[in-house]
């Protein structure tokens, strides 16, 4: 039977899992991997809970999950490169298993530079305000706005190019 503090964290997990999962999924493109990262982020924050204020918890959770996802993505690329490990197929062949969005949008999102993708995912999927994204990523609000605009421009360009190729 979990204690009151554990119960609070379990409730928090239940309320934030979907948002975090949807953000991480657009980095790893694999459901099982994405859930692992969300779990890991929560466990790390749980272990460091004495150093995190309740207002600061959500930004820390998102930041931890984003960093873990980026690290995992990088390490799988590396291990695949040297042929020592199998990365989930979805990371290199987007759309192979969990395709939901039109393939071209997925590809465009996956091709965004990491710093632009993070901002886009937090505003569009996590529904965060510029101020919240700024707190989460440790950047200025103005930077959030410019990165989001740039990310959308790149997506539009990528989709327009794709459309021209298909027509």
């Amino acid at each position, binding site marked *: 039977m*979990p204690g009151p503090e*554990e119960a609070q*964290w*379990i409730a928090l*997990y*239940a309320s934030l*899992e*979907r948002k975090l*999962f*949807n953000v991480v*999924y*657009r980095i790893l493109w694999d*459901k*099982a991997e*994405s*859930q*692992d990262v*969300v*779990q*890991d982020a*929560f*466990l790390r924050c*749980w272990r460091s809970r004495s150093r995190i204020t309740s207002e600061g918890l959500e930004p820390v959770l998102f930041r931890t999950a984003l960093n873990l996802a980026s690290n*995992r993505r990088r*390490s799988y690329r590396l*291990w695949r490169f040297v042929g020592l*490990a199998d990365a989930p197929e979805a990371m290199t062949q987007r759309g192979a298993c*969990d395709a*939901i*969005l039109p393939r071209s*949008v997925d590809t465009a999102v996956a091709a965004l530079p990491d710093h632009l993708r993070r901002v*886009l995912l937090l*505003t*569009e*999927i996590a529904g965060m*305000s*510029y101020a919240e994204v700024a707190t989460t990523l440790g950047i200025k609000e103005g930077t959030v*706005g410019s990165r*989001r605009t740039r990310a*959308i421009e790149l*997506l539009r360009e990528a989709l327009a190019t794709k459309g021209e190729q298909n027509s």
Partner: protein
Amino acid sequence: MNHEDRIPFPDIEPPAGGTERFRMQLENPGDVPRGTIGRWAAAGGIVAVLAIAVIVVLAPRDMVEPEVAVVFDAPELDRLLGRPIKQVETTAMIDDEPVALSAIPVKTPGIRIYEVRKN
């Protein structure tokens, strides 16, 4: 934020049982799964640090190679090895010529800023 240019990302259902799995991991922290690579890297790192610490601390000074002794005595290691921190003169070279340095007072402990003047 301009809501007209929002991208309609569909909401994806996470795999079932996430909350239950998190609850079990909170209750049994020893069973927390960790990445294989991270576990081996952490273990390797700990072993390496311990080995270096044992060599540095236990090796008699006269058995230490001269190059190692120089490194061991370097003031940069004072803080790491818990020795009293000695004042050292800070020097800098530009185009193989020594340049004058003057410390700029800062309030943050542990941070030193120098002004470089090339004659």
